[in-house]
């Protein structure tokens, strides 16, 4: 195809349509994460952790698609792409907020347990990492201005629960049996 302004514009439109389609899929992915988190959380209260694996899988699917969209948006030099970038950042901030909230919930349930069976310990470690990394990302300039009051309160609670959980960590996680 000849490189003419018309053809470049046409190619851009095709790419933008693809990215819009991916953003719709990402929104659906976000809904799946919220639903899976609810199920996993209900199960964890009863010491069942099977639904948790499904929750982590849908979070991974969301992350993978988000990486693809981010790269595609980076390559676009079109004004219309800016509106899509805005929507993408909104969606990512929403997802990170939801993950902080879900991780807080899981850690609260688990940190109240005095004995932790193997499955629960894996969930505990995974949620410790998830909360730490989601908090780290959401507190960057890119997302911090987009957070609502609820998420800001969650971040304060996250710091407190990380402190508490980490105090108990060597004993709960058995990093080093000599500790505590």
């Amino acid at each position, binding site marked *: 195809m000849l490189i003419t302004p018309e053809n470049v514009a046409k190619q851009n439109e095709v790419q933008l349509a693809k990215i819009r389609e991916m953003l719709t899929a990402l929104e659906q992915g976000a809904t799946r994460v919220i639903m899976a988190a609810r199920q996993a959380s209900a199960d964890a209260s009863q010491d069942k952790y099977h639904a948790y694996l499904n929750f982590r899988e849908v979070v991974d699917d969301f992350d993978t698609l988000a990486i693809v969209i981010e790269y595609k948006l980076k390559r676009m030099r079109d004004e219309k792409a800016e509106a899509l970038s805005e929507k993408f950042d909104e969606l990512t901030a929403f997802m990170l907020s939801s993950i902080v909230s879900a991780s807080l919930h899981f850690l609260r349930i688990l940190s109240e347990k005095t004995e932790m069976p193997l499955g629960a310990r894996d969930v505990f470690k995974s949620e410790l990492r998830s909360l730490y990394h989601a908090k780290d990302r959401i507190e960057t300039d890119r997302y911090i201005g987009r957070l609502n009051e609820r998420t800001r309160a969650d971040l304060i609670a996250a710091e407190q629960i990380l*402190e508490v959980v980490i105090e108990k960590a060597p004993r709960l996680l058995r990093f080093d049996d000599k500790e505590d």
Partner: protein
Amino acid sequence: MAGKMVTQHTRAEVEGLLSALEGHADGVIEAAKLVSNKINEQEWHAYSAFRDRCDDFDTLAIVIEYRLKNLRGGRDAQLERQFEELQLFMLTATLQTSLHFLRILSQKNDLPLGSKDILLGELRSIYRVKQLLELDRYKAKISSRAAKDIETAEEILSLIIERAPSLLQLGVAEDA
């Protein structure tokens, strides 16, 4: 939280944890070597052991970071430097390993089921590690080899993403 008491930890406690973290780093390197050989033989089960080792390192590093903040007698620049060096070592080693896996996988036209999970896991890992290595606290300290690896990572990520979504099966229509 008003009146919250944070336990302060001794230098010896944190030194013990840092030493355990070094042991975890060795474990990750060993597991990476093992899984690299297995990937060439198209055996994928060793991969989850490698990822578990990385997760253990990550979890312990989070614990140490918080304990370094609550050290009895205040912050300790030497321990913090030791921790940061270990983190940087691990990030660059993970990036090298991910690049190695992705090179092997990107040469395959048809990915069997197990390898697709590895590809997706490595795509997310390489993206996250690259973002961390580009933070100010590491940027000035990375070796020229690691800087080159970051460039390669960017190229490989672009290449794989160009082949998405058919390769990654993201549930959206294929690229034109």
